[in-house]
Structure formats: C-alpha cells, structure tokens
C-alpha cells in the first residue's frame, strides 16, 4: 500500500542515468533511481529504488528505501526498508518497517521528530561551527 502510494504521483523522478550533486530540495514526492551526492530534503514522500546510490543526508516525511544510502536518514513519519536496502548511517523515524535481508549499519532512534523540529535542527546544524576531533 505504502509502495503504491509513493510510486504514484512522484513529481520529481531522478532516473538511473542521472547523477545529482548538491543540496536537492523538493516540496513534493520524489523518486530516485540514480545517484545523489549531497543532501536530499523533501516535505513529501521519498522512494529510493533498487539501482539508486545515495551519498547524502536525507530528510523526508515518508520514505521507502530499496537502494544503497551512505548518510543519515531523518524521516518524520514512516520509514520502510525493503529486502535490498542498505543504509550506512543513523536513522531517525517515528514508524520503522524493516524487511528480512535489509542492512542497517548505524544507530536507530525512534523519536518521531516533527517537520518543524527538522527545519530547526537543520538551521542549528548549519549555524554550528564544525570541530574536528
């Protein structure tokens, strides 16, 4: 059901022959089958396909992951990892669904952060100077 919802009406579609670099922001549903390096932020649903290779921090309302992600994933509502999903990074979500075979290498926090909090957190993260340890 969730898969179908995310598939239908994806306003942004990044195909397998495309590599996006930088800060990608969207207000609608996003489907990624290609490569993305940088950050991904959407207030809609995000679907990451099996062929997708993501090297980015992700913020989304709902997400379905079937590809490879290197980066932190922050989802305000529901995060679903399919059997072929692989995440190297921390995840933060309200509802988590993990299929058998999915790989998660990182911390998992289920706090149910709101979109307003995400925005505030992003601003705070940008404002803070980074210190090397």
């Amino acid at each position, binding site marked *: 059901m969730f898969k179908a919802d995310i598939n239908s009406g994806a306003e942004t*579609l990044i*195909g*397998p*022959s*495309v*590599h996006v670099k930088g*800060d990608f922001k969207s207000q*609608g549903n996003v489907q990624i089958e*290609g490569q993305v390096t940088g950050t991904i932020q959407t207030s809609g649903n995000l679907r990451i396909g099996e062929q997708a290779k993501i090297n980015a921090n992700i913020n989304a309302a709902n997400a379905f992951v079937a590809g490879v992600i290197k980066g932190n994933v922050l989802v305000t509502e529901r995060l679903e990892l399919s059997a072929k999903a692989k995440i190297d990074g921390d995840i933060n979500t309200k509802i988590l669904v993990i299929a058998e075979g999915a790989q998660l290498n990182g911390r998992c926090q289920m706090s149910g952060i709101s979109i307003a909090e995400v925005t505030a957190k992003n601003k705070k993260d940008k404002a803070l100077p980074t210190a090397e340890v």
Partner: protein
Amino acid sequence: MPYFYLYDSYLQDRSFASVLIKLETTLTDLGIQGRVGRLTLLKSVNDLVDGAVRDGADTIVAVGNDITLSQVAQAVIKHNKITVGFIPLGTQNQTIAPLLGIPLGILACHVLSSRIVEELSVGKINNQYWLQSITIEGSPLLECERSYEVNLESPHSIKICNLDSWKENKESLPQGKGQLVAVLTPARGGGFKFFKQSQTNASSLPIRELKLSSTDDELPLIVDNYRTLKTPAVITVATQKLRLIVGKKRLI
C-alpha cells in the same frame, strides 16, 4: 472590446481559403469580429502586435498553430493588460490547443466568445521569452535552482516544458503555473535512428531556474520549435504572466 486577428503566413495557402471565410462569418455572428493582420516576409509578429496595440486592440488572437501562438505570446508579454486568444487551424504543430481546451478549427471561435481568461506563466531564456518548451540534445551540465547540479553520464534528449505534454500518453504535468519541468531522456543508438529514446529511464525535475552549459562545443537549443539559441543559457520563469483565453476542457 477590440479584437485583432493575426493570421500565420501558412494560411495564405489556397486550401485554407474556405475555412478562413467560414471563420470570419462565425466571428461576425458571435459579435467578436475585428481587424485582421497577416504575417508575411515583410511584416513580423512584433510589428503587427505593436501596431494593433497602438490602435487600441486589447485582445490579440493568434490564428495558426503552436508556433504562431508562441510568437504572439512573446510579442504581447511586454504590453500590459493585453489578452491573447488562439484559433488553431491546420493539423501540424497543434499540441498546445488540447492543453488549453481549445478545439481545432472553427469551433475555437466559441471558446473565444466564452472568454474564460487564465493567467499563465511564461519562460525566459537569457533575455527572451518563450511559451511552450525548449529542447536540447547532448550532455550539457545542468545547474538547478543555484543549489544542485545534474550530471549526465550519456547523451540525453532534454526538454524543458512550460506549456507542453511530454509523455507519450499525453498525460500533462502541472504547467503554465509558475514552475517548469525538465524532462531528461537518455538517448540510445539503435537501428537507423541515432537517438532512440528510452522513456522508462527518463528523469523529470520541477524547476524554477536552470543554467545550461557545455564543456565542449556550444550546444543548440531549440526554443518553441522555431528559434535556435546556443549554450550557455539561463532559463527561468518570467515575472510577467500571459492572459490567455482558454476552454472549459483545459488540462492545465
């Protein structure tokens, strides 16, 4: 409400003579007749539109096809409070009319008479306006919204749409409403056709600003199917809106 009808040059062909007579009769019956200007080698769209506005016309009607409408839109956008109408005649290059809910031929006069006006956005490329779409073939570098780049691994057919349908089933995207859509389709060699496109691997990106550049030679950009510009180019949504008469069955 003074109307001005701008006839495209291809309507001078004898095959359109009877249609034009019927058209003028219908316009008179509906009470929306007006002055007529014909495009020729010596009279450009800009000359005709500027003259009509100077003479007090407040509705310029493009009689022709997509290219006629695009040319009229480009000429009208610099004038304030001018409404554009469209009567599509002929069968070639008629993709905008269905989106606007305007039937082909004489029936379009009734849409004109009903006068449902929508404000639609117009694109801008460098300092020129465009209405329908821009196409480019190759592997240009795309910088979108000044925040991210799109790199293409192979040659693509790229179409930036403002008022156009890009899917084969004519499904239209939200268009003419202040956002452009860049559709990137990988080109694949095969058979006798060099660019055999694969629709399934296509990407689509809603954008408001796009910078196109190429590392090698300048790439040609086809604007509204009749003008050719070259990279680099900055494509944006213009601040001005186009007042366009549309039909009840419009898809936008």
